[in-house]
């Protein structure tokens, strides 16, 4: 019985760990994407420190240099980067 519980715990732990690392990878790719978008607009941003997602394709980004940007896709399908 105790072996079963231990096995279950291991499986759960493994699943959580894999999910966490996968989320971290996603997070890094979103940060990279947001950073690229900001720099493509010619705006300064040393590095994306964190971001909050408001909606689909709608983020508030905080850069390492202290700049904050609202990055979103408008109704015309254009990516807009607004300094806040």
């Amino acid at each position: 019985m105790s072996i079963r519980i231990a096995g279950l715990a291991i499986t759960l732990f493994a699943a959580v760990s894999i999910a966490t690392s996968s989320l971290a990878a996603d997070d890094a790719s979103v940060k990279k994407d947001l950073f690229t978008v900001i720099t493509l607009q010619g705006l300064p941003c040393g590095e994306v420190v964190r971001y909050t997602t408001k909606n689909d394709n709608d983020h508030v980004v905080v850069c390492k240099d202290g700049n904050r940007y609202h990055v979103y896709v408008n109704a015309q399908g254009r990516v807009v980067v607004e300094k806040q």
Partner: protein
Amino acid sequence: MKAPSIIATFMLLLLAGCAGTPFLAPRAPPQPAAPSPSPSPAVIPPTTAAAAQPSELAAPPSTAPVAPPQAAAPPIAAAPPAATLPNPSAAKAAGSTVTAAAKPPAPAAQLPKAASPTTDIAKPKTPPLDLTSLEQRLKSTNAIGVLTKLTLKNQVDDLLDKFRAYYQGKLKTTLADLRRSYDLLVQKVLALLQDSDPPLATDIVASREPIWGILSDPKKFATI
């Protein structure tokens, strides 16, 4: 009771090791000797606008792994010596004086033979421009994020609008200015692709002039 705890410790160590591993995007192997019709990255004319761009995306072209043409040349140049001296160890055994005496006429005699494949490779047939395929590959590549792709698409559309306005006489600019904008946009795309999707970057470099050929010709431009 001991066995599960040992297994648990082992799994924990295993996962801890995985968690510390940085995420690496799959990289395509470098293309060793593929003869590319494209110019070297150094040949890409860096526009002044690109130099003035504050963006960190304007990666130095020197780091571009896009089809190094020098990589194609050495194997060809190295081929004749390999043919004349197939077994270096045997040559060493025979003595350096013997090889020195025997060798000089051989490369001279074999140079014309080696020259013909060189010229064949130096003049590769220019591949037909496949805009649809390039567009599809750009859409499907994982090297660029969704928002970045959308931003680039917007910038491409803006540039096409500029060309349209220029040909309609509504925009007071020169073809040289448009060329600068075009180069800058291509460089942005290449900077994004060169590390994560080198084959696509290479193909874009190869298509750069054909695409400009379409853009700069009002008749061809009207067809797109």
